[in-house]
């Protein structure tokens, strides 16, 4: 008789490794790992089949602090390495932890192709708009004018918008959250995990040492309600301290305008309802910036399609099915042969 070993459900702390966490005190990464450990407990993840993969950077230290499998690779290449892992063992549940330099600067190409191929894994971008580990140079997401050791007179490059880029590359799941939003973040992680295909999650993360408060203009308590919009599929795009602001489509200019319900004859029915399967809406939400527009948080886009790993493996399976028990000796002897 088989007695199944009764396994206690794992708690968040069971996902913490025995290694001392070495981020700077006050770093936003602490909050992210907390949310992740909670998520894994919530979804009933197994330590042995969960793998955290990362490149190099502060964010990329993530795997060391998780009690799962982990691979801390080289700068920018986590997406490529993860693709290999997934093809070799599709049963593994892969989370990539990456910084804005790692994912968007040196690793931009692999990210783009990961998204295009739609490999089934979760890609987390810890966006602190700075190179933390190398001591504070500006990054591809840094705003124009960022003073840093490599730009003492201010940076002159226009930053890339991570979510817009992901959508342009063909991502099928794009979400955004903030390190400190400890209710929102696990929920976004859960959705990302649920999605089959590459789930791209941008997490706005505060680097207390080199870029402190760079998101404060919309995360500070007093302004947050008016400068953030939490989107939810099927719900109207309403926000504001008084929940009286909303987004309304202007069909002539094809833009999303911020309107106030009750003003200028605007009623709730004028407000656009979030449809997470609509790519155009997703791009418009992704591109909104304060102070004129609120920052959109939540699942901006989710429109599943076939995954790369499934398709690759299905093709191998088909080949195997077509020639069951393919024999190497026979294969090598195909075509013209002769005996001496």
């Amino acid at each position: 008789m088989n007695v199944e070993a009764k396994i206690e459900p794992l708690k968040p702390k069971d996902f913490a490794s025995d290694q001392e966490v070495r981020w700077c005190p006050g770093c936003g990464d602490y909050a992210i790992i907390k949310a992740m450990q909670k998520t894994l407990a919530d979804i009933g993840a197994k330590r042995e089949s969960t793998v955290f993969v990362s490149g190099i950077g502060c964010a990329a230290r993530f795997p060391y602090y998780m009690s799962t499998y982990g691979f801390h690779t080289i700068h920018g290449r986590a997406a490529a390495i993860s693709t290999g892992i997934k093809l070799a063992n599709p049963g593994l549940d892969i989370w990539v932890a990456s910084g804005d330099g790692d994912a968007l600067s040196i690793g931009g190409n692999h990210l783009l192709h990961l998204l295009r191929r739609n490999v089934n894994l979760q890609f987390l971008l810890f966006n602190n708009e700075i190179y933390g580990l190398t001591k504070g140079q500006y990054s591809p997401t840094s705003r124009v004018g960022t003073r840093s050791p490599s730009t003492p007179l201010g940076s002159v490059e226009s930053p890339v918008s991570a979510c817009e880029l992901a959508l342009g590359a063909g991502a099928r799941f794009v979400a955004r959250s903030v390190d400190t939003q400890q209710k929102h973040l696990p929920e976004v992680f859960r959705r990302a995990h649920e999605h089959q295909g590459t789930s791209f999650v941008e997490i706005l993360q505060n680097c207390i040492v080199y870029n402190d408060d760079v998101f404060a203009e919309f995360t500070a308590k007093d302004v947050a309600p008016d400068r953030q919009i939490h989107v939810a599929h099927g719900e109207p795009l309403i926000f504001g301290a008084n929940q009286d602001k909303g987004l309304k489509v202007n069909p002539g200019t094809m833009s999303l305008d911020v309107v106030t319900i009750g003003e200028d004859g605007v009623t709730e029915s004028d407000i656009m309802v979030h449809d997470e399967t609509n790519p155009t809406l997703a791009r418009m939400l992704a591109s909104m910036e304060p102070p004129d527009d609120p920052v959109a948080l939540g699942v901006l886009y989710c429109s599943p399609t076939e995954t790369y790993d499934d398709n690759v493996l299905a093709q191998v399976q088909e080949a195997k099915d077509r020639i069951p028990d393919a024999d190497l000796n026979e294969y090598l002897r195909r075509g013209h042969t002769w005996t001496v």
Partner: protein
Amino acid sequence: MSTAASTAETIEPLEDREELESVVIRFAGDSGDGVQVTGGQLTQVTALAGNDLATFPDFPAEIRAPAGTTYGVSAFQINFGARRIRTAGDRPDVLVAFNPAALKVNIEDMAGGSLVIVDTGTFSGRNMKKAGYDTNPLEDRSLDNYRVVEIDISKRTLESVGSFDLTQKQALRCKNFWTLGLIYWLYGRDRQPTIDWLNVKFGKIPTVADANVAAVNAGHAYGETAELGLEVKGYVIPPAEMPRGLYRTVTGADATAYGLVVGTRLAGLRLMFGSYPITPASALLHALAGMKEFDVITFQAEDEISAVCSAIGASYAGSLGVTSSSGPGIALKTEAIGLAVSTELPLVIVNSQRSGPSTGMPTKTEQSDLYQAVYGRNADTPVPVIAASSPADAFDAAIEAVRIATKYMTPVFLLTDSYIVNAAEPWLIPDVDELPRHKVEFRTDPERFHPFLRDEDTLARAWALPGTPGLEHRIGGLEKDYDTGNISYDPENHHRMTMVRKAKIDGIADDIPPQTITLGSPDAAVAVVGWGSTYGPINRAVDDLQVEGMDVSHIHIRHLWPLPRNLGRLLQSYEHVLVPEMNTGQLRTVLRSEYLVPAVGLNNISGLPFKITEIKDAVRELLEG
């Protein structure tokens, strides 16, 4: 499986023909002339006739250069004989030139008195001008030194296929098979295998199949009816003595693919191949992409970095990750190879070398990436390096690369080159079930486990796969503590880890065969030491020189890093060590540094394999001063 027996009616009495020990034939023409296909058929038929052989396809750099241009000329050379054949031959005995450009480009390689067959039908003023001829070479006596056979092959072909429903263009496309028929007559070859092949190949367009068959037969008949004139007679080349067994011809690309698949099977693993196309390495990707039924996964990555990284990821997850490229692409992989060294993951990196630097001459051969393989990384990152010495040898070399990578948990370089990739030779097909296994044991026991726990003998670390309960661990490129596998910045630990990584690779020298003398004795005056595809010319040259009575040996090195334990002592026993290389002296550097032997180089960086005579001359010079 085909049969070695020939169809009776296609054989004529060959008894009266003159016997040759070997012959070298080169076909040359426009890409559209089907030169490579023609060569491929002659190769098959010759192999079936029991000759040993070697081939050398030489592709133009352009995909499809305008017809008639010199840079658009495609060539295929075959050397076959009644003795063991080592190279595709220094100089052709027969040149088939399908147009003036082909004649122009190839005539300088021909020895005086050799046979030159030209299709006069293509010698229009326009074509000759395109080829850069001011006067008609067939008339200006510039070919007086050769036995020129002028045939209007175009016209003859059109005649031979006139009864089929073909456009003129289609009909002319049968030229190569007409010519092949003629060559078959010349050397007494069996037409049937080619006829069979045509019928399969063009099964869906029987008119084309039939027309080509008719062309083969017509070309053959042309020879038979002695239309060639008396100076050209048929020859016979008896079968060569070869080890007994079942043979096929194989290119280096195919042999490498088979070796990787077989080697991975012998290790009990799945093969995951990550690559990005590049000439001439793509051929391996193509070959493996067609082997999915053997559970092979091929991943065409977005670039070489992704390719090697995907392979590393696959090895991390328990497959054997293999990646492949040529020099410029390998350059891009070197950072990631460092990660594989640091994390001690198995990985096979196949480099099909080509002519550099940079883009260089992408379709030409060279062996100038040895420095890159042995030394070409940042930090102290020793990596085993293995080279294949011929197309068929790539099979064994690939198995050996897989064995070492998995047994020692290390990246391994497998070096081939453009010549090996594209050339073909007979291959004694092994019984895969009889090959020695080198099965991988994954770690599953959590007891006292850490990821950098080492096997006492091999010094290889434990391979523990994600998915295994209880062995959850983290690895990465940061230095690791010897005793726990955790990150460590301890100075002494780093020294210790660097030294153990080195000792692990150095120790492989005890697990590879001692260096043998390929030909000759340890007390000769000269050792000609080679690696890779120079095997053929060196071997033939040394063989010939020994026949001439010269005191010379051939040593060919397969394991370039670590080197066989006995190699130093062996080399020190010779007066002269000559190292012919298709580079400026890379193996020479390694040998001099390792053994302090005053090795001298013979360096040919022309994009072409060595000629046997070049090596013979160099040895003579060394001995005679």
